[in-house]
């Protein structure tokens, strides 16, 4: 095996695996026996009609469902070989490894700088003020926002436009140096231009991070993702290469959804 192929094999390893995951909200089952692998340095898209459980499933990966009292998760989800629902797991450490960007941009009501600096601060990632500034600037650059805000880092984060706010949230997630970034419909509230910017950004972020994105836009999934999982009524109907899924899906339900006959 030469160097090139070896690198490729490494790049395609599963960083996160889900096996037989069930999620219940009280008595209502939201996720039914889902198993899938998230591959490193790839973009995995979760698609499906509203209420199919794709956001719920996404939130299982960083245990954000813990905040909902009635939500129960069973089955096994592993990150780098460790069961993230094991009692020994520190949720704080888990969420530092697996960042999240939400549907609605939710910057803190603080300055742009403070928004990005908050994560590194609470995780003690910077030893000095200069180092912290360095992290903030690097993160803003990686989120493609630095050039637009470099002269007003002390302005409130909420003074930015919607698309800029969402990129600020991405920068904030990047700042704690996660392995995986979960994105829950990050572009649903943005106009096509802001969406295109964020899609380009995700393309470039793929080199450093693994991205799992929930999206309502099939076109977006087709444009940016390498793998796609189609959810329907809490089940994964089909999971595989995006290209194949959007051209020759195996399942009739997938075919119908992609072609817009259900949804």
């Amino acid at each position: 095996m030469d160097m090139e192929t070896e690198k490729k094999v490494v790049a395609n390893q599963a960083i996160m695996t889900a096996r037989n995951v069930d999620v219940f909200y009280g008595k209502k089952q939201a996720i039914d026996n889902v198993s899938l692998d998230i591959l490193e340095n790839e973009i995995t898209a979760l698609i499906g009609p509203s209420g199919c459980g794709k956001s719920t499933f996404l939130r299982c990966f960083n245990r954000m469902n813990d905040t909902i009292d009635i939500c129960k998760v069973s089955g096994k989800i592993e990150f780098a070989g460790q069961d993230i629902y094991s009692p020994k797991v520190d949720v704080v450490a888990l969420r530092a490894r697996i960042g999240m960007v939400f549907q609605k941009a939710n910057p803190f009501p603080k300055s742009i700088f403070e928004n990005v600096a908050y994560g590194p601060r609470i995780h003690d990632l910077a030893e000095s003020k200069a180092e912290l500034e360095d992290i903030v600037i690097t993160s803003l650059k990686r989120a493609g926002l630095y050039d637009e805000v470099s002269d007003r880092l002390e302005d409130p984060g909420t003074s930015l436009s919607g698309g800029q706010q969402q990129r600020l949230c991405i920068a904030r997630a990047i700042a704690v140096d996660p392995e995986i970034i979960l994105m829950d419909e990050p572009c649903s509230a943005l106009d096509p231009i802001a969406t295109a910017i964020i899609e380009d950004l995700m393309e470039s972020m793929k080199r450093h991070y693994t991205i799992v994105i929930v999206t309502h836009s099939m076109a977006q999934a087709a444009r940016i993702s390498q793998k796609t999982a189609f959810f329907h009524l809490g089940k994964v109907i089909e999971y595989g290469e995006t290209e194949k899924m959007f051209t020759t899906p195996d399942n009739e339900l997938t075919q119908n959804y992609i072609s817009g006959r259900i949804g």
Partner: protein
Amino acid sequence: MRDLTLTTSDQLKKRHAKETRFQWYGRIAILISLSFLVFMFVAIFFRGAGAFQQTKIGLDINFDQTLIDPTGTGDPEIIANANFKPLITKSLAQAFPEVTGRSETRALYKLISSGSVFELGNMVKENPELIGTSQKIWVTATSEVDLYMKGKIDETISQDLRRLKDRDIAWVKQLQESGVIKRKFNTALFNNGDSREPEMAGILGAALGSFFSLLVCFLISFPLGILTAVYLEEYAKKNRITDLIEVNINNLAAVPSIVFGLLGLSIFLNFFNLPRSTPLVGGIVLALMTLPTIIIASRSILRSVPNSIRDAALGLGASKTQTTFHHVVPLALPGMLTGTILGMARALGETAPLLMIGMVAFIVDIPKGVTDVATSLPVQIFLWADSPEKGFVERTSAAIIVLLIFLVLMNLLAVYLRRKLERRW
């Protein structure tokens, strides 16, 4: 053909009439409630305005050393215990040489407030160099003279029905002619504690009693209320126990305040033996009373902090406590503070629970701390309103004015804090 006309129909007229009528109902309702308010303020103001002035009589007083400090020791204790009454009687005798005889001179002396003796005493205590000099001193007149000067005594009714006799009025007129009787700003009202003599009674004791009570109330209810609200809203699991607690907090907010007074009486006074009639106990009872209000207000403010902020912090790996205290509480704090101040304003006006724990006593001394006996402003108003002396009528209204000013100031502070601290971004 379809009818496409857009011109007036009969229904439109009716609809407009209905709308106009309804708007007028609203305007009239507002007008009625506003007029009640204006009526109340005007009535209180006109009754109370007089109390901010007090009639004083200018006397040439000779601070005779033989009467104050016969041996010339300069010892403050001797000066404090000296009898200052002869100073006033001598000065009166000079001013009214024609008045002789025991009963006449006694009646003349009664124009001067019995509290003037203490005023002179304090004056000499502060300036011992006055001893041996002659000064023109404005001493306080009795409230009867004061009422006469303010035109509140009807001279036409028989003098048997008046405390101020015709002879007394003649003397007052004589003083008026020589220009030594004047209405001056009533400093006693703001510097003294309660007194049996209306002209000597002041609200300082009651105001400080209220202040100390509110201080205790704030120190207890603010941290307790906010911690309870934060725990219930951010940490507690939603189950039967928290439901029960929530229902009971809402019920407590509706409990009549006198019940809290009875609770304070039986627990803090009878069981814990805390000192009776003190701001300490008053403050604790008021804190119990305001706690539900503060908790309910704080919880609703916490609930109004968008969940997306919590998600953002948790998603970054902040712990529950970090999320709460770095983001949620700072955002909610201005609102919680406002709620607390409004609760405090309610506590300031509260009388009933304080009656139960003995803060309704006649207390002359000005409290210096939370364990000194005291009354509070509303209780003082109640006590004065209950007093038979006519001079207390205007002082009651004056005390109400002062209480209202404090209430308005507290509400303004709440509005100011909300505007100032609220993060708009």
